[in-house]
């Protein structure tokens, strides 16, 4: 079981209030991602759940039990850190065994679990090495191994992939998702990378300055962002936000259209502009369109990879009316 409830939780560091009163429920078995720009309080929130920081006020319940003042060790949660935080003086085997040793588990059971974890994480050949002799990806797997052997009620991941190179990050992302499918244990995952959030989460919690901006499934957030911040944060490349006269035509302060919901043509269309940079990804091309008369920011549009456009070309854009997002003066969905 791993149902975690935050009830009016606040956190201040001295005078600075990092988390205003915040309520959140994480259901058993859910993969929840906390996402937001740096300094939004997502790591602090995770550390509050872990018990590594004390809440200033409010209550944290784990499976219905008040865990607010429990030390981290008693909460039954396992954490994977950004820096892996392996014990450098211990072999991989001892690293993985450490939580079980602390729990006083019988040696046979420990060995059994180490073997099982090492096998599932491809670490069997490395059990007698020290962390210093492993690559970044292997270290990360050791950290995960150390977390799974305890069979915690929930896993906490604090930006676990930020120190890995791009290719490895994609692999580890899949491995963690597969792990979740296999274990069906609650996972809370902190990242600033919205791609990780979109691809892994059952539920995304978008944070800004300690406030929850929106909670929902990845597609909820993509299709109906509740405000301009979420609209701009979720989706890659970013949504185009247009203000002024064009937005007024729709009776709102701001309209948003995703790059993939703009139709591009070299002959005719609603808006027109000049192609600045064209990013060719092969399957798709992203065009940055300038001089469109809708504002200062260039518009981003996704076109087919085969479309023959170059820097300086004239181009016409037509938004898909049904995919248009409308926001009022406060930035809220209209």
């Amino acid at each position, binding site marked *: 079981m791993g149902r975690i409830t935050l009830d009016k939780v606040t956190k201040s560091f001295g005078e600075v209030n990092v988390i205003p009163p915040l309520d959140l429920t994480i259901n058993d078995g859910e993969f929840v991602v906390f996402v937001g720009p740096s300094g939004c309080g997502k790591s602090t929130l995770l550390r509050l759940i872990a018990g590594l920081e004390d809440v200033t006020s409010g209550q944290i319940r784990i499976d219905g039990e008040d865990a607010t003042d429990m030390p981290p*060790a008693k909460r039954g949660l*396992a954490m994977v850190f950004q820096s892996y935080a392996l*014990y450098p*003086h211990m072999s991989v085997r001892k690293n993985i065994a450490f939580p079980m040793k602390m729990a006083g588990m019988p040696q046979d059971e420990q060995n059994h679990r180490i073997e099982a974890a090492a096998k599932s994480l491809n670490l069997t050949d490395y059990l007698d090495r020290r962390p210093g002799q492993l690559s970044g990806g292997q270290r990360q797997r050791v950290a995960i191994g*150390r977390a799974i052997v305890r069979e915690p009620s929930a896993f906490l991941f604090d930006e676990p992939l930020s120190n890995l190179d791009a290719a490895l990050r994609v692999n580890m992302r899949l491995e963690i998702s597969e792990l979740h499918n296999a274990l069906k244990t609650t996972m809370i995952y902190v990242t600033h990378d919205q791609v990780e959030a979109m691809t892994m989460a059952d539920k995304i919690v978008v944070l800004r300055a300690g406030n929850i901006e929106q909670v929902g499934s990845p597609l909820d957030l993509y299709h109906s962002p509740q405000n301009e911040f979420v609209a701009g944060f979720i989706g890659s490349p970013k949504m185009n936000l247009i203000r002024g006269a064009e937005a007024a035509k729709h009776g709102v302060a701001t309209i948003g259209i995703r790059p993939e919901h703009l139709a591009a043509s070299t002959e005719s269309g609603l808006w027109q502009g000049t192609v600045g940079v064209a990013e060719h990804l092969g399957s798709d091309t992203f065009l940055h369109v300038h001089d469109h008369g809708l504002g200062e920011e260039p518009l981003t549009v996704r076109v087919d990879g085969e479309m023959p456009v170059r820097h300086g070309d004239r181009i016409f854009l037509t938004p898909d009316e049904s995919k248009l997002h409308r926001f009022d003066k406060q930035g809220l969905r209209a």
Partner: protein
Amino acid sequence: MARRVTNRRKAVVTVLAWLVGLAIFFPILWIVILSFKSEGDAIKTPFEVLGSAWTFESYATVQERSNYFRHFWNSVVISLGSTLIGLLIAIPAAWAMAFVPGKRTKDVLMWMLSTKMLPPVGVLVPIYLIFRNLGLLDTRFGLVIVLTLINLPIIVWMLYTYFKEIPGEILEAARMDGASLKNELIHVLTPMAVPGIASTLLLNIILAWNEAFWTLNLTAAKAAPLTAFIASYSSPEGLFYAKLSAASTMAIAPILIMGWFSQKQLVRGLTFGAVK
């Protein structure tokens, strides 16, 4: 522009370094030379001293007159004892200062260090009286206590700088893994800090071994370490250079040999945290 390291500049620096090194080492060298001379030759001019005959007679006399091994053993007990007790107190203290600092942690550290700025003679009388009343005068136990207290600020400071270098996330990981504070200190922090603890240990053994003020003032015969053994050769009847030198050579030899073998640890210990 980078400075050009010419051969001439290198040579000058090398010669200078050797001169400084020799100047520092010379007194020790001279003591060793004098210890192998007769009492009569030892007070001659330097050139005559070097030209005179070599002899072991001073060592023989020193060995006859006093019990070197008793003093040696006292030195070992006092320096090791005070260092180990100091470490037992300092490891938790430095842990607290490095990982759960409060508003006043820096002040406490400075205050601890400031006790080293007080001339020891300033507290000699009260400490002497306390020792007399508690029956600690001329006991190894008493000296262990005094030297522990005197070197504690340095031990805490050194360990604090080492512990500061250990990433806090690793200790947090231990906490998440269910380690109690005791287990965190024993299984994670201490083994990771072994190099730092080792050089702290070495340096403090040396400091305690060489400490002369308290060992001379608080001991008479029973607990007297090697410092008192040296001092006993500067007697009211006059200085006996050769015997004094022989005694000194015997007193500093063990620690010098230990220092020689642990040079690398010591240098690392002393310069640790200096470059960030």
